């Protein structure tokens, strides 16, 4: 008991130590070494999906806007290559003024021509060029460059999310002349305007960047360079931080790994934590009986004691917060008091489970009804949450068998509808309702709607929130969407929000954890203390 209390005190001290560091005067020099659990398939962020591209490569690039690197919620937007912006009265024209004197690493000047070429590649890619995020910009009619330092985005309709989408960590600005010659050049080469210049990539081993002496943000970056080491195994990542072979791993560690590092390194380690813009969901196949019956789906969500689950699971897995469709603590998140009114979120679990049993009986589902739950073959956090779900469902008389499926086959199973209930997830690279809710539209609109339903009311609510420019109006639409999705129709079941835990060498300063492991990776504000 005393040992646990001691460890808790050390973790608390390590967690509280960080904001104090943020007040200090940055120190120049040093090489930041960080572990990356994945590796970039190609170097082109416009076409890739993995953080394995962002972590080693983002320091070479800039985006138009970005979430404020000091904002823990990552919802406050600041300029990156754009220094200011205006929105027309009808909400359909966004005009951005670019910084002057920004140079690419080859010495050429960055202008609106480059921004236009980059966004054209993302939004209107030519035949044969894949842009993974094209679908996110259906509202864009045209991108224009009226003068070298102005970019204009004309929209087909108003959008509540457009500004945030210009802060996407994937939308690196490439050089127009290079794209004009070869649209695929950036898949195998690096050349941006970012704070660090590319040095080398040894496949499967490491990535190195050095300080850009001509960086437009004078005085930055603070580091001489950085080295990203590709380490797939989490135990090896922990050893790397513990043995001071790496200062940090930006994706996250489990609670046990955090405790291990804190116990071993004490004051040499600092811990930052945040709710993560990732949630584990249960997709219930509406094309299979009895999951076509909303009483059964509601019973499945009513069976879950999320509050107790949060307490227990957060000690062993990277899940913690009880949440709705938005990351807790962010502008559009449902406050806890309101959340508790939704089915499955009631505080009284006995009342919930009694109602669940009643609904199952009413739907004609016999006690001991058996079904198979398909889970993704990735241990953390899928395995502990899967086991927890089965136990929770057992408590309302359901007999559930878990089938664990290897990652590549998992998508085929989900897309093919070859399941009754399955673990699913929603991870966003930026906290923005359009991104977080897109998945839940009807199956003909969203290929990732694995519950396979058609709900035009939900589609309308999605569109309503997406086009709302007024924050309150948007918030209201999001609440309605949430209520319909998880309560009235119970199309999907939210389990728990992921929880991001970053224990890092206490020398690392100027970096703030956010709800997304895709954000805050430019490293321009990061420095190493003595």
């Amino acid at each position, binding site marked *: 008991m005393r040992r646990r209390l001691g460890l808790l005190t050390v973790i608390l001290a390590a967690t509280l130590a960080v904001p104090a560091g943020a007040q200090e005067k940055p120190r120049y020099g040093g090489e930041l070494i960080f572990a990356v659990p994945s590796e970039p398939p190609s170097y082109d962020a416009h076409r890739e999906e993995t953080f394995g591209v962002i972590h080693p490569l983002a320091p070479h690039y800039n985006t138009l806007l970005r979430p404020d690197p000091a904002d823990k919620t990552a919802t406050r937007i600041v300029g990156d290559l754009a220094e200011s912006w205006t929105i027309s009265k009808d909400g359909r024209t966004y005009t951005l003024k670019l910084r002057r004197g920004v140079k690419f690493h080859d010495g050429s000047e960055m202008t609106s021509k480059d921004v236009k070429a980059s966004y054209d590649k993302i939004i209107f890619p030519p035949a044969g060029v894949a842009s993974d995020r094209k679908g996110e910009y259906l509202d864009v009619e045209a991108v224009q460059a009226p003068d070298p330092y102005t970019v204009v985005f004309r929209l087909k309709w108003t959008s509540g999310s457009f500004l945030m989408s210009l802060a996407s960590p994937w939308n690196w600005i490439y050089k127009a002349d290079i794209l004009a010659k070869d649209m695929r050049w950036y898949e195998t080469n690096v050349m941006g305007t970012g704070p660090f210049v590319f040095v080398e990539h040894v496949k*499967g081993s490491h990535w190195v960047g050095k300080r850009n002496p001509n960086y437009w943000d004078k005085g930055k970056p603070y580091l001489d360079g950085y080295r990203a080491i590709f380490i797939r195994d989490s135990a090896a990542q922990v050893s790397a931080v513990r043995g001071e072979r790496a200062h940090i791993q930006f994706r996250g560690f489990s609670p046990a790994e955090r405790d291990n590092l804190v116990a071993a390194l004490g004051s040499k380690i600092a811990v930052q934590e945040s709710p993560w813009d990732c949630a584990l969901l249960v997709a219930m196949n509406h094309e299979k009986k009895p999951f076509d019956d909303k009483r059964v789906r509601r019973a499945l969500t009513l069976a879950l004691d999320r509050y107790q689950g949060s307490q227990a699971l957060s000690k062993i897995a990277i899940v913690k917060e009880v949440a709705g469709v938005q990351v807790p603590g962010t502008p559009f998140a449902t406050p806890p008091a309101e959340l508790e009114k939704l089915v499955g979120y009631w505080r009284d679990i006995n009342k919930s489970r009694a109602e669940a049993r009643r609904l199952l009986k009413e739907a004609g589902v016999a006690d001991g009804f058996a079904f198979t739950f398909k889970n993704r073959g990735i241990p953390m956090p899928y395995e502990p949450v899967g086991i927890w779900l089965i136990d929770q469902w057992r408590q309302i008389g359901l007999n559930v068998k878990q089938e664990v499926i290897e990652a*590549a086959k998992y998508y085929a199973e989900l897309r093919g509808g070859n399941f009754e209930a399955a673990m699913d997830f929603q991870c966003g690279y930026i906290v923005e309702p359009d991104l977080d809710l897109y998945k839940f539209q009807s199956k003909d609109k969203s290929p990732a709607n694995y519950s396979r339903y058609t709900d035009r009311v939900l589609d309308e609510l999605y569109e309503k929130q997406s086009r709302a420019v007024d924050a309150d109006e948007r918030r209201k639409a999001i609440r309605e969407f949430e209520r319909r999705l998880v309560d009235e129709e119970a199309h999907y079941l939210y389990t728990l929000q992921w929880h991001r835990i970053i224990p890092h060498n206490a020398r690392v300063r100027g970096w703030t954890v956010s709800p997304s492991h895709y954000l805050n990776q430019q490293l321009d504000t990061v420095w190493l203390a003595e």
Partner: protein
Amino acid sequence: MGKYIVKRLVLMIPTLLGVAVLIFFLMRVVPGDLVELRFAGESAFAQKENLDTERARLGLDQPLWKQFLVWIAGVVRLDFGKSMWTGAPIIEEIKLRFALSLQLAIMATIIAVLLAIPLGVLAALKQDTWVDYTVRIVSIAGLATPSFWLGIVFILGLLIVFKWLPPMVYTPFWVNPWQNMLQLIWPALAVGYRYSAVATRMTRSAMLEVLREDYIRTARAKGLWEQLILSRHALKNAMLPVLTVIALEFAFLMGGLVVTEQVFNLNGLGLLFVEAVAHRDYTLTQALVMLVAFVFIFVNFLVDLAYAWLDPRIRFR
């Protein structure tokens, strides 16, 4: 002997062809799809049109027989193409990892041979004495201990006792031998110990068998010097099965050290193999299987040559 070598070399071709056919079609039978995994995996926005474009670019929309012919035509020219996952030439993907895996395999083999042969011979000569029992305990412990577990023990031991961890990035031997050794000696020891256990057991039993042969008794009866009997008559003949075990283990090390590579964060062929399969990177997986198959066949070929050298009856047959 020359005719024997040519015959063995020619026999490699149908074996490799069989491996090629098998791996090509086996990979296509495994469920899952590289394009879906890479572009639709975590994105709710993946458009079917996008996925189709990628499939067409990778040639995955072509009939299987056509894909096979294109690939096998490349293999014949020793052009394995590009990795479907990274787009980089396969030769580039394999080159660095091959050097590391080869060095690790050689180091582990040296450690294993240096331990196994003296210990195995000693145990056989001192059969049922405390020496033999000690060697047996050490070797059985080696067989029972997975090398990755021993690797974890090494890492934790170094971290806890010396507060030091081996380098996590590979430095080629010719660039910095010291750094290279600092990184590779630990996995080589972990793997070499288990490897030596197998070889020690084999050396001991082979020696015991040979020492009971008539020709050894005859040599002793003739009053031949014991050292000469052991080295020239007993050990040379006992080496035949030991050589097979060492060679097969060596070939296995070239692609089979997945967990050990993970524990020490080694950028070797084993991890590349696992990632290629997990990503459904057909071209890379096929190339790796062909490489490992070639290593196995080539090592077996060398063993056969060694057999012929050690045992004249084989080359005269």
